């Protein structure tokens, strides 16, 4: 892999970590309350969707670089912040944002692993070109 791609991966993965936290903290992911007297039946399928989304994110958070507890706190906070949203369209939009975060987390984990394997098993092109020793990790 050329050096420029390597740098790009490094930058992207660093940005991703910050971006993910930003999306989680400042976006609002809904927690649908139990259907009240005035509420409609439409809340129910969305409720299970939201609950499943929370479970999926929690599962993914186990591998979070800053720790599973850190992730869980932020996740719960993000969901609780929007527990009063009732408009189904709004909820759907926020659930989609949650799915987006799932995709970003998967990409982050893949990049971390790829970079770690590349660093360990493949001699860095730059050091080979400059003929300096491999860094000891």
């Amino acid at each position: 892999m050329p050096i420029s791609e390597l740098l790009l991966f490094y930058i992207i993965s660093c940005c991703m970590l910050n971006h993910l936290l930003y999306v989680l903290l400042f976006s609002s992911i809904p927690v649908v309350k139990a259907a009240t007297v005035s509420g409609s039946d439409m809340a129910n399928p969305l409720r299970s969707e939201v609950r499943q989304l929370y479970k999926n994110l929690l599962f993914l958070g186990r591998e979070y670089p800053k720790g599973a507890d850190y992730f869980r706190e932020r996740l719960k906070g993000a969901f609780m912040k929007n527990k009063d949203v009732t408009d189904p369209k709004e909820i759907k939009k926020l659930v989609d944002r949650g799915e987006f975060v799932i995709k970003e987390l998967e990409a982050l984990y893949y990049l971390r692993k790829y970079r770690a394997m590349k660093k360990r098993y493949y001699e860095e092109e730059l050091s080979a070109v400059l003929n300096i020793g491999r860094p000891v990790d």
Partner: protein
Amino acid sequence: MSRVLVGVKRVIDYAVKIRVKPDQSGVVTDGVKHSMNPFCEIAVEEAVKLKEKKFIKEVVAVSCGPSQVTETIRTALAMGCDRGIHVEVSGKDYEAMGPLQISKIFAALAKKEEASLVILGKQAIDDDCNQTGQMTAALLDWPQGTFASEVTIDGETVKVVREIDGGLETIKISMPAVLTADLRLNTPRYATLPNIMKAKKKKIANMKPADLGVDMVSRVEVLRVDEPPTRLAGVKVETVDDLVAKLKANGTI
């Protein structure tokens, strides 16, 4: 039609800091996070991709070890394998287990399951042997496509692009064959919670090495495990003459 055997190994997670046991007999594994070997993930992904492209019918994930390896097999099933085989090895046998025993097990299984392909990771991140794939191919007398960074099935032959020192080598080998996956073969999918839930329905068969006629006696004995030496501080010199003098004194030139 065709069946693919994929080997997965349960290793200490790549991100964990390894510690050597005080008695220098091995590495601390109790209570340490374990996961699937990254190269095995790539192997599973390739097998599942081949199934999705309809080149093969069934993907069987195989792992050898104590009961905990079923977690790793479940992850492979969540990634898309059809069923799993758990070869039970525990205690002293498990500690002494190496590429030779594994390749014997895989050779026996490949014949038993009538597999047309055996796909493995190129090496495990804990022992870095890089031998199991090659040994399996030798025991079966099958061709091998190792360090594969691209695999294309064409009828009864496989075109493999291999990563070698100095570039890429393309070879054509006939099936049945053994392939070992290199880092750039593909991007493994993540085993998400819904997939793991679905995978609970898939079967994992249980067997012992003796059922396959394999003896687990090791020909290798681990004498000692040491940490790598800590890096010594460098020495700074003022002029080039100093450098030359120091190198001469060191016996380097």
